[in-house]
């Protein structure tokens, strides 16, 4: 038989591996900075660039896209070549993928602290960067599929299916969620508004978890776990079911992020049902992983790499049991907006993604450098300190989530709110926030130990840049076996067909969510009194977006008595039709703001923004003194009004050529007068004026409506 000799590219694997470690340290440090500010706001050093609202997206982006992203590429570039018995399709595309991806991350690390953000969770980057992401992702996908097409192994192992699903689905998600109208360089408004924007965002957000944090890592699990244990996966049959069931169901479950919001009930129920069904494939996968180790537990005890793997797979099981639980409406009514969600995602991030990445890195480095791991003992320390860190993180977050959730809902015997002052429920959980920061610090310390260990390992060996291998090309392999194929065998031998089917599966799920979206569009009742934002309010809203207030404040009062008592009338779909983007938020570190308009005098907001503790003693909201001094940039107004008009906000034609500026100036004066009533002297052209105008508008349109009705 004619056998070809070829070389695996290990240099690219090493590059991604190093980037993984570097970004792990950066991303987690940003996390600790954010966590610290939650009990000690001064930790932002009075710098606007690192206040909580801006550091939080920096942290999530760095951990998800930089750490896990590079980790995923590390594992894929290593395993794919070997599973395909082929070098990567194109060296150019490999390096384009590496430099492109990491340049995007650097761009994120610069723009997010500067306040350039779309405010949509895990999709915060502005449009030029979004375009770059699409280009790099396409390069990766071509490289992936190209390698698969020129493979020398006829069959596609299950790990490869997971990689394909990842590549195509992330592309689809990214494109649909990023559709927006530029309003200048680094500023845009999504084409969707309100409830539609929310639905698309969480269709994306949920599936980013599914197809960025889960499927690629399942692929890695199916490759590296058998490798490390030196035994084949427990059941290949189960892995087939795991794959198809998972990719088919995951996509449908997005609405569970919007339970009890203004999203229509049926969409919520559909999201809930499919979320609960997700347990089945997820647990199938977890058991498949753990059972692969049956009879090898002695090995697990000795090998830190396997220990990390076991905890990772177990954490996957815990997170995928908890996720569906949180999607049950009654549980969600308690858990949503609390730290319970934070605990949940960190079980996944620290346990599943983190530990699996560490495991792969410990396994890879000795092989890339043809040597032994520098210190198994140090790796063991890392394991235990990491586990401890996880415990210190997750347990306090559960405690604080449940505590605060219950406090919000607590009524006295006489039917009054037990804790009418929101701040009281915050002060109660501050000790938990402190413990959580300790947990994060321990976890990071473990990563530093790993960095040292891997560095020393690299030093003790020499990089095997090109690894030689031999295999016959597909054309020279006997095909008789193919004649008696079974459907799946046929399918995985045909990568193009396979990819098409995968796209079909995720598109069906996508359509199930998107079609209702258009039904909603034609069915959102317009409330006559709901009007577009005035120019000043619009710029104020953009400041709200820039500062990341949405990271701590929701704007969605759910229809519970505990919420309507506290905040006011519950939120209606029709109130958000001009909200590009929606700002419902997902976490209430501070109170809901949807009905804050006219709740306080202007001067209260002025003082509160300058120093929250002056009005709310003990508050952990960061002070925003720079809003009082920075001048409002009104030059951007025409571009923004035009962009919003293009996406459907009914500003009159030509409004931006003079009238808007006049309206803006007159409203500025109104706010200044309002402030002077509270003995605050402020200049009209400051940013704070716009922000106050926006805050005072929030949720008031509907109050106007009831006033007119009452007057009639």
């Amino acid at each position, binding site marked *: 038989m004619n056998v070809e000799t070829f070389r695996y590219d290990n240099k690219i694997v090493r590059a991604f591996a190093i980037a993984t470690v570097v970004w792990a340290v950066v991303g987690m440090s940003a996390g600790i900075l954010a966590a610290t500010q939650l009990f000690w706001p001064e930790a932002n050093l009075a710098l606007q660039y690192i206040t909580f609202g801006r550091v939080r997206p920096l942290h999530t982006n760095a951990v998800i896209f930089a750490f896990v992203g590079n980790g995923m590429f590390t594992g894929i570039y290593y395993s794919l070549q070997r599973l395909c018995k082929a070098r990567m399709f194109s060296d150019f595309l490999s390096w384009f993928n590496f430099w492109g991806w990491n340049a995007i991350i650097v761009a994120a690390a610069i723009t997010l602290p500067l306040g350039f953000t779309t405010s949509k969770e895990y999709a915060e980057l502005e449009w030029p960067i979004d375009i770059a992401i699409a280009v790099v992702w396409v390069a990766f996908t071509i490289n992936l599929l190209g390698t698969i097409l020129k493979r020398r192994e006829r069959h596609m192992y299950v790990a490869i299916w997971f990689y394909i699903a990842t590549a195509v689905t992330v592309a689809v998600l990214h494109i649909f969620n990023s559709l927006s109208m530029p309003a200048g360089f680094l500023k845009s408004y999504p084409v969707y508004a309100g409830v539609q924007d929310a639905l698309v965002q969480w269709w994306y957000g949920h599936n980013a978890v599914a197809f960025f944090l889960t499927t690629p890592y399942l692929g890695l699990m199916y490759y590296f776990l058998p490798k490390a244990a*030196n035994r084949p996966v427990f059941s290949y049959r189960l892995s087939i079911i795991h794959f198809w069931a998972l990719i088919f169901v995951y996509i449908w479950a997005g609405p569970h992020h919007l339970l009890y919001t203004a999203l229509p009930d049926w969409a919520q129920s559909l999201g809930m049902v499919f979320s609960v069904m997700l347990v089945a494939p997820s647990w199938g996968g977890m058991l498949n992983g753990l059972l692969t180790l049956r009879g090898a537990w002695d090995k697990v005890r000795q090998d830190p790499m396997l220990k990390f793997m076991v905890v990772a797979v177990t954490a996957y099981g815990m997170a995928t049991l908890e996720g569906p639980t949180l999607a049950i409406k009654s549980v969600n009514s308690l858990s949503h907006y609390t730290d319970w969600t934070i605990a949940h995602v960190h079980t996944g991030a620290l346990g599943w993604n983190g530990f699996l990445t560490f495991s792969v890195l410990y396994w890879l480095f000795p*092989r890339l450098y043809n040597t032994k791991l520098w210190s198994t003992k140090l790796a063991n320390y890392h394991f235990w300190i990491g586990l401890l860190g996880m415990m210190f993180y997750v347990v306090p977050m559960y405690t604080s989530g449940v505590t605060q959730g219950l406090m919000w809902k607590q009524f006295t015997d006489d039917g009054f709110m037990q804790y009418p002052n929101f701040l009281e429920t915050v002060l109660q959980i501050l000790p938990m926030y402190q413990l959580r920061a300790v947990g994060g610090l321990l976890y990071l310390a473990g990563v530093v130990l790993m960095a040292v260990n891997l560095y020393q390992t690299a030093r003790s060996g020499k990089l095997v840049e090109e690894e030689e291998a031999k295999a016959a090309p597909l054309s020279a392999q006997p095909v008789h076996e193919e004649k008696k194929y*079974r459907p799946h065998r046929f399918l995985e031998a045909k990568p193009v067909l396979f990819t098409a089917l995968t796209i079909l*599966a995720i598109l069906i799920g996508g359509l*199930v969510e998107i079609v209702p979206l258009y039904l909603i569009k034609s*069915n959102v009742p317009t409330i006559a009194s709901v009007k577009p934002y005035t120019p000043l309010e619009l710029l104020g809203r953009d400041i709200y977006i820039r500062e990341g207030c949405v990271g701590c404040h929701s704007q969605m009062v759910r229809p519970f008595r505990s919420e309507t008592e506290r905040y006011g009338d519950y939120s209606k779909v029709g109130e958000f039709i001009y909200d590009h983007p929606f700002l419902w938020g997902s976490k209430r570190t501070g109170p809901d703001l949807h009905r804050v308009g006219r709740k306080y005098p202007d001067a209260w907001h002025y003082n509160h923004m300058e120093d929250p503790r002056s009005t709310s003693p003990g508050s952990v909201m960061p002070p925003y003194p720079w809003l009082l001094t920075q001048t409002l940039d009104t030059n951007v107004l025409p571009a923004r009004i035009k962009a919003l008009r293009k996406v459907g906000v009914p500003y009159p034609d030509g409004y931006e050529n003079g009238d808007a500026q006049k309206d803006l100036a007159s409203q500025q004066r109104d706010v200044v007068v309002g402030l002077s009533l509270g003995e605050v002297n402020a200049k009209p052209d400051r940013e704070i004026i716009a922000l106050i105008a926006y805050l005072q508008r929030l949720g008031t349109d509907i109050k106007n409506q009831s006033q007119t009705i009452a007057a009639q």
Partner: protein
Amino acid sequence: MIKNVLTHIGGIGLYGIVSICLFFAVFVGVLIWALTLKKGYLNSMRQLPLEDDSRLDAADTTPSRDE
């Protein structure tokens, strides 16, 4: 009021049922498919990740294969 309007969009009940049926059809299909696969094929597939680099087994941090 608004909520009522939305819950009564025409055909939405059917929509939910159709999507769940669709899901079950696909799921059952995959199940049958997987169950009819031949043992020999499944075993050869399981071995795929273990076949590749034998050269570097010396670097293995785990004790050697015990099967």
